[in-house]
């Protein structure tokens, strides 16, 4: 059984600009980790935020997830809460 392709329109992102963001953020991460006098906890939070931000840029623009149908996005998103549950349960078992 086949269905027609989607006919929605979208604009192709500026890939080189996203590459520049990723490059600059990688430099910022290394500087933050080794050069900047920031507390360990703040450093940890900032590094994780930057990593997630970079990963989102790749997923949304390079993998075109931003322009895909919601049904397809769900396939990729469904494992994320499951993954969070997996890690949380193991941590709780370790803590308690």
């Amino acid at each position, binding site marked *: 059984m086949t269905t027609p392709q*989607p006919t929605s329109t979208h604009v192709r992102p500026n890939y080189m600009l996203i590459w520049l963001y990723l490059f600059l953020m*990688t430099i910022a991460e290394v500087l933050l980790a080794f050069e900047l006098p920031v507390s360990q906890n703040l450093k940890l939070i900032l590094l994780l935020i930057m990593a997630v931000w970079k990963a989102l840029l790749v997923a949304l623009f390079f993998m075109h997830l931003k322009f895909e149908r919601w049904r397809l996005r769900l396939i990729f998103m469904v494992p994320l809460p499951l993954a969070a549950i997996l890690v949380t349960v193991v941590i709780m078992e370790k803590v308690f």
Partner: protein
Amino acid sequence: MASTAMTDAMRPPYPAEQGAGVYSNKLGMWVFLASDVMFFTALIGSYIVLRFGMTETWAKPGAVLNVPLTGINTFLLICSSVSMVKAYAAIADGKKYFLRKVAGKTLQDGGLKFWLLITIICGAAFVGVQVFEYIKLVGHGFTPAGYREGSVLAEHALADPVKYGAGVAGMYGSTFFTMTGFHGFHVTCGVISMLYLYFTKVLPEKYSPQDYRGIEVIGLYWHFVDLVWIILFTIVYLI
């Protein structure tokens, strides 16, 4: 952020699976990637639990691992990701060629053959640098079992056990080599797949703006590998 307009209607009329609304190869790749998310989550989750559940501290960032070298490797993978997406855009626009002179521009315009070759070179370079890093680390005494007795790192760890995380070196070694090793295996599989496509489909010009499914599917895989490395680089090398 906008440059060239592209419509989904321009995409080739592949038979689409009912429900997700995409062709079966692409749907299959997304389902595979979803399963790979769980695979890497198990590895990263175990690492987090082992590392932060320990009373003893792990080696400080940069004490054992060569961060500048891995930073360059990260840059290579990011470059390969952008060249992959440029390859995808090139074939979608019908640019099958390697390089072509464009009137009014000093730089030549790259086509599918050019951008995919750049991706393959960057991916192979990433694997090469990782192998070099492993050889250096093992040479210095960092193995999956910890610091080898009598090695340089074992001596450093004796002199400064906190900086080198002497008490948990075995755990550090096993998690480091497991996570980066599985990622390196994914990159190697990607490079081999792209080489196969390059010689069997791209060079004989079998892809067209009407059918470039192979490029889109391998592209999804390649970007996912880049995405995983972005997380691994931060967690393993910088924290």
